[in-house]
Each structure stands twice: as C-alpha cells, then as structure tokens.
C-alpha cells in the first residue's frame, strides 16, 4: 500500500467511524487529555492501516485498534501534572443529583464520568456494550471467552446504573 492509498483509507475511516473514536476517547480521557488520546488513537489507526485485510469489517478493525491504543495509552507527564493540579484545586466532587430536566449533554458527561471510573478493561467493555457489539465480537476483540464477557457486563451494567442514579429519568 502506498502513502496515497493509506491517506485515502485513513480519511475515509475517519469519516465513517468518527463516532467509534469519539466514544473511546471520551470513555478513556477527560478534559485536555482527550486531545492527547485522540492523537494517540489516530496514530495507531494510521500505523495499522497497511495491516488491514479486506476480509474483515472495517468497523471491527477500528474498534480493535482504537481500544487497544486507549488501553495502552500513556499519559504525558505534562497533562498528568495538570490533571493532578486541577484535582487538588477542585473542591470535593458533588454527589447530588443534577436538577430535573438536566440536558442530554450533562447526562452524557455523567455517563462518561462513570465509565472513566471503571478499571481499564471494564471501561473498554462498557463502551463496546453501549456501541451495541455482541458478546462474541467483544470476546474476539479482547481475547476473552463469551462467558467471561457476560459475567463482566452483568457487573458493569450495575456500575453504569449507579453512575446514572438521580438522572433526569430517575433510577429504576
């Protein structure tokens, strides 16, 4: 594959699978770190393109590469320090529920916050689950058994429900 073909495929995938990248980046990084992680994910995708064989679904490929990059991402010291400073400067996190009628944006922030609080592997599984992948697809991407995915997701759904408690729709 030459550089022009690599560029063309990169642009096409970026357009077609932007939501996958958006979800994984927000699920693994908050604030300014999102930009760093997005660059890391894009670099991983760029480097992986020559390895793509047309017998696989591009979306599965993008999931595998982007989640791999996010899971093994190393934060830059600069951003890590900035994050620590922000954390130390901030008052204790608010635990009260958002006001009724809180917007979707706020609910999404709350959901992403809940996802980011999970251990890395669970974070990835939660994102794949929300994106609607089957247990078999998740198991293949991660190298787990389907039953292991099922057990983990059972626990994860409860964690996500806890994160969304007190949302505009109320706990169920």
């Amino acid at each position, binding site marked *: 594959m030459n550089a022009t073909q690599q560029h063309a495929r990169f642009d096409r995938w970026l357009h077609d699978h932007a939501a996958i990248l958006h979800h994984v980046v927000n699920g693994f990084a908050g604030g300014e770190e999102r930009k760093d992680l997005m*660059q890391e994910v*894009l670099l991983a995708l760029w480097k992986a393109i020559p390895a793509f*064989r047309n017998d696989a679904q591009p979306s599965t490929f993008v999931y595998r590469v982007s989640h791999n990059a996010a899971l093994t991402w*190393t934060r830059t010291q600069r951003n890590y320090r900035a994050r620590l400073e922000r954390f130390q400067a901030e008052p204790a996190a608010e635990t009260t529920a958002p006001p009724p009628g809180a917007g979707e944006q706020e609910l999404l922030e709350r959901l992403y916050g809940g996802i980011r609080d999970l251990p890395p*592997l669970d974070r990835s599984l939660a994102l794949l689950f929300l994106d609607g992948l089957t247990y078999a697809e998740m198991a*293949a991407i991660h190298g787990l058994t389907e039953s292991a995915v099922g057990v983990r997701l059972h626990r994860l759904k409860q964690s996500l429900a806890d994160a969304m408690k007190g949302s505009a729709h109320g706990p169920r």
Partner: protein
Amino acid sequence: MDPADLGRLWRSPHNQPSAAQLEEDRMTFITDLRRRHRGFVVFMALVFAALAIPTAQLIYHLLAPGPGTDPVDVRREWGVLAALAMPWAAWAFFVIQYRRHRAAFPDVETSIRESVQALLDDNRMARGRNFVVGGLQAGCLLLLPLMIRQLKASGKAGSEIDITLIVVPVILGAILLGLIWNHQRTLLPRKRELEALLKSYDADPRPSA
C-alpha cells in the same frame, strides 16, 4: 435510567463528534506526523555529521598522511579505530530499529490481550537495548586510556590529549544518566502498567457473592 434510555442517550446527536472538531483533530495529526518524522531525520543527520567529520579526518590521514607524519598503524593504534567504530555501530543500530519500528504495524488478527503481551515483550527489548548501549559506553570508557596511550606512544599526541580523559567520561556519564532516567521513569512504569492490564484479563470476573 433503564437500558432503553441509556441506548437512546448514547445514540443521541450530542454523542457524535462535530465535523469541525474532527477536521481539527485530523489536521493536528497530519502536522504532528510530519513533525515527528522531520525531527527524527534532523536528529539522525546531526549525529551522522558529528560521526562523519572525525571519520573523514581519519580516512584522509590514512590515505594521505602529511609530510613527516606516519600513516595510522592499525596494529599499534587499533584503539582509535575501535573507539570510532562503536558510535557508528550504535548509530546503525538505532537507524535499523527506527526503520523496523516505522515498518511495523499491529497484527490485527490478534486480540488486545495478545497485543498487550507483545507490548510487554517490546518493553523488555527496550530495556535490553538500554543495557546494550550502556555496555557500548563502558567499552568506550575502557578503550579511552588505551587509545590515548597508543597515540602518545606513536608520537601523534602530547599531553594536550589528556583533557579527553575528563571530557569523554563526562559526556558518556550524561548519556548514561539519560539511559537510567529512561529506564526508571519511562520503561519500568510502562512495564508495571502493562503487567497490571494483562493481570486484569486473568482476574476472576465472577461477581462477588
């Protein structure tokens, strides 16, 4: 919030990237890709020039020694050649590594778990490379007094060359400190992160009773 609400929220337009943001990310990436490549090429060119100048001088001296100057006698002055060969070996080593790194891409047939295992192997190799470079430096340090003694014995250098006994160890010491920093602050924490991630794959996923 029930699963249906969660699904609706997840698929809402608010959870989609904007076209403007996407374009900005793309442009930043392309610029960064070019900058990384250019930075490495400039660095390697500078190192190449720093090595090529003394090498060219030596070759010139071998081929066309000045009047009253003996050509280099390899049997008598092999320390100089060996000391010069080591940085070239290191330079070639890094160029080969970089080319391999650029040509490498993840095996998409493997799972993320296997990729993490491969990254852990890469980390082990990177730590091994640090030891190789450290060993080359130790070799240079050991050769230095020998090289100076040979040059003095052949009458090609006087006591002015003794300054290299201070300058070269200081430079090599600085490089060694850099290697130790890289090992302690980058490679070892990375190893621990990857090991923890790999361990999470093997952790018992059963919910606690």
